[in-house]
């Protein structure tokens, strides 16, 4: 059992790791090994999506437990579960279109997305035979199926048209996706503007020489990025001798390209050495905590 539980996983890691390294160095003379360089990463991607089941299960179990125990704030857990299940369901069926539906029928009314990408408008299929660009002929109608007076018939790709139910599902999904997901996402992202301010207020204090350098370069770069910076440069230009050289934007650019980029290179070089040796430790089985214990 120890062999199965402990040694075999180590052998698997060693062999796959070695294969990837050999594949990287193999030339065109070894096409089947060379091809593994791109195949195996794709496999990894597939394998990792299977664990989504574990994640979804963890999310559901914890929140269902809270609800059943009526724990503090169980109502929010209910919100989470409703959001999760409805988005998962809507995503599953809208993404499957047109898998679950028949081909479009002539004379029937379907719905296509409007330019705002959220709402849908009704159309009637005039001709369901695809032309050479794979499109079909439709006309725009109102909700009762009457042709709209001021519109002409149009050519659309058939997979953009949906049945009424699918169009409702799509609208619901768009409300959740655009209304909730996208907006919450960009709002959380934009909170950074506030946190950048509070962090710089607290942290940029000249407590030591190092802190002074940190603040100084941050200050110059911030100043160089906005129009006030050029105003300051114009004032500084009045200083005799060195004045004309004190262009904030130029100083900013110099800091970015020389001292700052030198430090960035060094960080990257160090980090990459760390990457390589950490990887080697795993391939050779020195580091094995990710495999857990004997049990």
């Amino acid at each position, binding site marked *: 059992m120890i062999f199965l*539980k402990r040694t075999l996983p180590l052998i698997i890691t060693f062999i796959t790791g070695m294969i990837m390294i050999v594949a990287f160095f193999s030339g065109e003379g070894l096409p089947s090994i060379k091809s593994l360089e791109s195949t195996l990463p794709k496999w990894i991607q597939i394998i*990792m999506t299977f664990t989504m089941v*574990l994640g979804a299960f963890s999310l559901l179990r914890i929140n269902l437990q809270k609800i059943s125990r009526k724990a503090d704030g169980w109502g929010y857990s209910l919100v989470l579960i409703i959001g999760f299940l409805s988005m998962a369901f809507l995503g599953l069926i809208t993404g499957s279109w047109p898998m679950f539906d028949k081909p479009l029928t002539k004379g029937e009314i379907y719905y296509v997305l409007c330019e705002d990408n959220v709402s849908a408008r009704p159309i009637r299929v005039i001709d369901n035979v695809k032309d050479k660009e794979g499109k079909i002929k439709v006309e725009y109608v109102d909700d009762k199926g009457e042709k709209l007076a001021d519109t002409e018939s149009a050519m659309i790709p058939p997979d953009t048209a949906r049945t009424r139910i699918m169009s409702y599902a799509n609208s619901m999904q768009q409300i959740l996706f655009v209304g909730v997901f996208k907006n919450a996402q960009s709002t959380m992202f934009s909170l950074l503007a506030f946190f950048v301010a509070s962090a710089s207020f607290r942290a940029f204090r000249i407590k030591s020489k190092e802190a002074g350098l940190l603040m100084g370069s941050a200050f110059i770069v911030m100043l160089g990025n906005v129009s006030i910076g050029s105003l300051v440069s114009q004032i500084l230009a009045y200083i005799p001798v060195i004045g004309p050289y004190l262009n904030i934007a130029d100083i900013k650019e110099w800091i970015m390209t020389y001292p700052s980029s030198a430090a960035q290179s060094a960080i990257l070089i160090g980090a990459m050495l760390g990457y390589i040796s950490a990887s080697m430790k795993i391939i050779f089985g020195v580091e094995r905590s990710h495999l857990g214990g004997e049990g």
Partner: protein
Amino acid sequence: MTTLLITTWVGALITLCCFTFLIKDNPFYRFAEHLFVGVSAGYYLSTISFHQVLKPNLLAKIWPTYFASGTAAEATPEYILIIPGLLGLLMLFRFSSNLSWVSRFTVAFVMGVSTGIAVVTSAEQYLIPQVKKAIVPLIVSGDYFGSFSNLVLVVGTVACLFYFFFSTEHRGPVFGNVAKVGIWYLMISFGAAFGATVMGRISLLIGRFNFLLSDWLHLIK
């Protein structure tokens, strides 16, 4: 049109709820937080994991007639992909407490492939180009400032690398000073990177307020 209106209103309310995070923990934020977590997890499960990864990369390759469309439906099935499929399924043994060790084979496989790639690609794509970047002529003819700048670059790279030495104490006249210069460089670099990012972050906030003030309230055009 109504869908757009609902979306805008839902969006505006969620935006405001998220902003209350700045004040303190409150029911509005908690509501938005839980809804956001739920919706995004649902989106990743169905749309990303299933429709964008599993379906095109696995199902459509093994059973093209059922899952692929167009010309791809006539492709020959790639049965080799059953291997990653099986390895993925092994992960589900985590549900069992006695057999959860079976999933170690998958973990081992994933670790082997990703570390194998990391060893070589990090050297090729980052390490070597960064070393090359630091090698510049110290004398640029006729350009004293350029020569000075190049010197700053080389000294900085070397000094910062010394800072990362682990097997020696950062003390003594040579080592202590060089490591100290390294720290100065790091600080300048951190300050500059911080300052440069501020601008982008504020642009994002402007985007949000633009949404609230123009798309929702129509106060500005």
